[in-house]
């Protein structure tokens, strides 16, 4: 199948400073790809290169089977939504939506029809005559999306479209974007550094670091089997717990040993044969079971330092050895700071990383 968007051996540098390093990605039609990574890793740069807003140093960009590396942005068949909304401040919503179409010289009724359709889709009908300054953050973001939609193109690019909104709105609009994607079936490339957005929206997530893709997989795969320490630490809130230690071959099966803790690794599915050596054990807060002893799992003895109730669940932080670990509990929690806990760890769900940081 032809890719909707593909990037081939793309390299982007500012002078000596390489921002994107020989990158290749293929994005299928109708796919929702999320680019996730810390600030400054090159997400926007990559997105801008696809849009044609950024000069590339070498490599190619293809959209809908056409090499568009030298095309103008407007000719690439893309729509784009920006973090700051980038609405034209002195134009009404209607004008914001129609400006590009008018410049392109579309017939009047065609423009009106498209604007009306887009406005209806995004519930902007009643706002058409307002100026951006008279809109709330969420409404502005919807207009920004509308401006991309009205172009009726196959590929949408989003650059952190929700990060200027408050938590509540962010949650609401996230669902709307997801519904929109399901309804329209366009290809979407979505940049964010919020892992919740990535997990909930993406068909596939590309996790980037310093211009290099660390892992490109489905959200579930990334959450469950992170390719390396960086990915493991980046995804999940609160972050995955890491314990440093060594893999040793005791009497029989492999074990992981650290600060008095010994965990049998028989249930862990290694990618390849593994030798003894330093390793890091990673496990997510919800992979600790509060009543470790009863469940027959290896237990980690600690003392509660902080309890964070969040309504439906709670995160409990406890001190173990010289570090602080977290565990997630459902429902109401009666633990208090100072209480002793002995949660059990299900090693089958945990992750082990070798000395070079990649998953074992």
């Amino acid at each position, binding site marked *: 199948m032809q890719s909707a968007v593909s990037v081939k051996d793309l390299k982007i540098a500012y002078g000596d400073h390489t921002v994107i390093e020989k990158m290749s990605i293929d994005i299928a039609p109708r796919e929702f790809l999320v680019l996730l990574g810390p600030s400054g890793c090159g997400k926007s740069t990559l997105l801008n290169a696809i849009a044609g807003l950024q*000069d*590339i*140093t*070498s*490599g*190619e960009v293809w959209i809908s089977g056409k*090499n*568009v*590396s*030298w095309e103008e942005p407007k000719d690439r068949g893309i729509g784009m939504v920006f973090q700051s909304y980038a609405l034209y401040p002195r134009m009404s919503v209607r004008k914001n939506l129609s400006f590009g179409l008018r410049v392109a010289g579309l017939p009047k009724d065609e423009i009106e029809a498209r604007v009306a359709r887009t406005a209806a889709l995004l519930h902007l009908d009643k706002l058409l005559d307002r100026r951006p300054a008279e809109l709330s953050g969420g409404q502005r973001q919807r207009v920004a999306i509308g401006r991309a939609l009205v172009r009726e193109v196959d590929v949408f690019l989003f650059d952190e479209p929700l990060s200027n909104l408050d938590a509540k709105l962010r949650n609401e609009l996230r669902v709307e974007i997801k519904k929109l994607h399901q309804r329209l079936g366009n290809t979407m490339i979505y940049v964010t550094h919020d892992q919740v957005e990535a997990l909930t929206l993406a068909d596939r997530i590309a996790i980037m670091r310093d211009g290099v893709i660390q892992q490109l997989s489905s959200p579930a795969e990334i959450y469950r089997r992170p390719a390396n320490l960086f990915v493991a630490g980046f995804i999940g809130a609160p972050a995955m717990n890491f314990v440093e230690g060594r893999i040793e071959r005791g009497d029989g099966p492999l074990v992981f040993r650290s600060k008095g803790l010994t965990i049998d690794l028989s249930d862990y599915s290694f990618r390849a044969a593994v030798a003894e050596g330093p390793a890091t054990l990673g496990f997510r807060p919800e992979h600790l079971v509060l009543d470790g002893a009863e469940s027959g799992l290896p237990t980690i003895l600690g003392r509660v330092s902080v309890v964070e109730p969040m309504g439906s669940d709670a995160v409990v932080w406890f001190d173990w050895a010289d570090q602080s670990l977290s565990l997630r509990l459902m429902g109401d929690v009666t633990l208090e700071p100072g209480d002793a806990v002995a949660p059990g760890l299900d090693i089958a769900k945990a992750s082990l990383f070798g000395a070079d940081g990649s998953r074992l």
Partner: protein
Amino acid sequence: MADPHPNGPKPVQITAGRIGLYTFLVVAALFFLLPLYTMVVTSLKSMDEIRLGEIFALPARLDFSAWMTAWSGACMGTVCVGIRSGFWNSVAITLPSVALSVFIGAVNGYALSLWRPRGANLLFGLLMAGGLIPYQIFLYPMVRAMANIDLYNSLAGIILVHVIFGLPLVTLLFRNYFVSVPEELCKAARVDGAGFWRIFFEIMLPIAVPMVVVVSMLQFTGIWNDFLLGLVFAGRDNLPMTVQLNNIVNTTMGERTYNVNMAATILTAIVPLAIYFLSGRWFVRGIAAGAVKG
């Protein structure tokens, strides 16, 4: 480009738009430079050559004598010492005037925008109205008032006059700037126990440095170039350079030496010009930092 397979950076093309852009800029630059060019050229000609009336022609022979005359030889009345005699007067008038008016303007802007005491809007309105009145009208009553407080014909007097007439503009600029400073900064300092002046000196003034640069440059130009106020208020021991310049340039029935006039003008303007050439960058930065907002 007929390349069938675009790869890598888009080749740079010199477009008609770019050429048009540079043409526009160069033409504009010529327009802006032409007067300066004419002045310089004229100052280097002899009077015989100037009488030919070819103002754009290059001088046949470089002749710096007009510059010497303007600087140290031109007569004003029976004294022939050139305009250099006014140079230090101009400095003595301009520097304190600029410093004082910038300081007062900064305090005003700060108080008007971040403290908003009773009547702040009224005061600001009055200042703006004052800024729109042609200042010739002030001469007469001001002279009287200054004479009454014994400041007429004194350095302090002319400085005071410049500060008063600079107040509207300077206050306007600083107020606009401080309006954009977050109020929380002031609140934080008040929780820390700082009072009005402490906040001003230790927090607000350091923030406003770019603005101070802009206002200082505007005020400097205005005051340095002032002629009338200096003439009327400074007194004969403090006359600024512009008065000497006027004496050279502005004779009614005496003969005129244009080369000396031009040289004298350029010499008079050289300080503000130097400031613009050397610190234009700061000026632009200051403006960008919010000096002039709606």
